[in-house]
């Protein structure tokens, strides 16, 4: 599958995964700031009118982006331009099923492949509905990245892992993005459980906001995902966001990278 994704988790330290919503603010400048700050993987959110799994920060980012007229073609162009500027940094598209499958899964997989996308996280396509997008992604060498949650029990886990690649995204709280953070102990238990079931890197997200939290999680996980805290900086600072994004990303990266050697 994606060599860029595999390399990002083989740097000798845990990976920092950073999320921003496409088309919210100056996406190119904001993504460059994340890379400059030390992000190892970029998740580019595809805005949707009905982001059912997101809290207010990312909901509002979706609304801002769509209100500015962001279209699917623009998002793919942002990805393609990012790939030209950063040949080594993996880029993952994250979003909801309907915008991804609107023109057919094969169309989306081809377009994402051409734009240099390494993986896709689709929030509302569980393994049970894999046919809707998974085969098309795999045919193009794009990693379908699945989510595991506190409600994914041991019996169900193999189903989640089957056909997924890139990394496993552990949603540490049963809830929506940007809200409460899970207790460190529960994260440690969950990551240990997941790692005993798969060789895929395990990245932990939902509710991670500070370098302290990120560093603590990186002591056990292969990656830490930060989204809402970054998206809020875009909302707050607008054109001046890149500077703030770079600062926060740098402190997150330092904490995550220094957490342990792997």
């Amino acid at each position, binding site marked *: 599958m994606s060599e860029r994704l595999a390399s990002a988790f083989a740097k000798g330290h845990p990976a920092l995964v950073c999320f921003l919503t496409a088309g919210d603010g100056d996406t190119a400048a904001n993504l460059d700031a994340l890379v400059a700050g030390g992000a190892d993987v970029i998740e580019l959110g595809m805005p949707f009118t009905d982001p059912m*799994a997101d809290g207010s920060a990312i909901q509002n980012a979706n609304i801002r982006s*769509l209100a500015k007229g962001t279209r699917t073609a623009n998002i793919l162009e942002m990805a393609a331009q990012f790939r030209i500027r950063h040949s080594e940094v993996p880029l993952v598209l994250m979003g909801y099923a309907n915008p991804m*499958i609107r023109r057919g899964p094969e169309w989306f997989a081809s377009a994402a492949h051409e734009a240099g996308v390494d993986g896709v996280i689709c929030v*509302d*396509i569980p393994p049970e509905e894999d046919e809707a997008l998974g085969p098309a992604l795999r045919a193009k060498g794009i990693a379908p990245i699945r989510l595991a949650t506190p409600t994914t*029990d041991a019996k169900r886990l193999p189903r989640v892992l089957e056909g997924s690649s890139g990394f496993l995204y552990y949603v540490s709280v049963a809830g929506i993005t940007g809200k409460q953070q899970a207790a460190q102990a529960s994260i440690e238990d969950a990551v240990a459980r997941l790692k005993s079931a798969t060789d895929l890197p395990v990245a932990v997200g939902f509710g991670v906001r500070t370098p302290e939290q990120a560093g603590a999680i990186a002591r056990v996980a292969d990656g830490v995902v930060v989204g809402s805290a970054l998206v809020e900086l875009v909302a707050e600072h607008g054109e001046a966001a890149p500077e703030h994004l770079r600062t926060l990303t740098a402190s997150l990266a330092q904490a995550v990278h220094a957490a342990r050697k792997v």
Partner: protein
Amino acid sequence: MTETPNSFRAQPDEAGHFGEYGGRYVAETLMPLVLDLEREYRAAQADPAFREQFDDLLEHYVGRPSPLYFAERLTEALGGAQVWFKRDELNHTGAHKINNCIGQILLAIRMGKTRIIAETGAGQHGVATATVCARFGLPCTIYMGATDVVRQQPNVFRMKLLGAEVVPVTSGAATLKDAMNEGMRDWVANVHDTFYIIGTAAGPHPYPEMVRDFQSIIGREAREQMQGRVGRLPDLLVACIGGGSNALGLFHPFLDDRDVKMLGVEAAGHGLDGTEHAASLLGGSPGVLHGNRTYLLQDEDGQITEGHSISAGLDYPGIGPEHAWLKDSGRVEYTAVTDDEALQAFQLLCRTEGIIPALEPSHAIAAVQKRAKDMPKDSIILANLCGRGDKDIFTVAEKLGVEI
């Protein structure tokens, strides 16, 4: 057009698919719950005690069976087919919604859930949910678009009287679909103790099947009543469609009666040629929203567009997946009726039959009007009068330019 199946009543398949529609397009956090719900529903279906309690509540609390009524003066006025109504507006709380709420709350109790959530548009499902929660002593949170909260004040007050917490949803367009998004967000964060009572035959499997089954009491009664009163089945069934639960409730028991034709009536709002309508089947295209694949109002990028209808209960940009399948299979015909046509039919029923219908079934009545006159006088149309109009008198007054 798909191949004609042996039975139209055998859907969905084990994975909850109605042909290419339906399914379980939910976040992983909800997936184990949705599977659990399906297991519990199957167990309840096999348990005679569950059925008995459901039937008992429908009879003594809801007031079923609802009457089957021959609308003599409307029939005369239209000058064609006999028009009959299934009077589900006479149910407790004034609409068909309560049938489903009784079934789902019994299931919630069976599953040991201690908190109920629901979404509502016009407020009818919210009122029905608040009603069953009061009846069984469970706390209840109703999500309602902030725009709808303003438009439907009487129902908001009803829900509060019944002890429900009504949460105005300001995200997105602040209407029914956003209320449903917020319901999903609550559910995903409270999976351990919360049961989500979805109000229409949509959402992830098993909801579309389950809601249809609970609402099928409408068609089962109607079938028996029709046989008893006229000794035969009707020629045409008519029902309005928002999410589609009252229509499926009426249609489903008749689906394999090949001589019974069926007409589902969507809301054409200001007309199907523009964007101001809520006709997902006639003016939309297949996509994925709120847990299922079905026809949606959407743009070329898959962004969901807002529906419009004079009736807040039909104002939803999707439709139950079984209707999507029934449309493609050709078993049910679908049409649409504008705001103005519905408003005129509303007044016609008031004056010919002394029944004030809700604006939702007024769409069905408008479609009956168009069809009846071209049908022979010995033919029979049965329409579902799925809600009463008390809630709509302010909207109607405003449209007619009358100050109350």
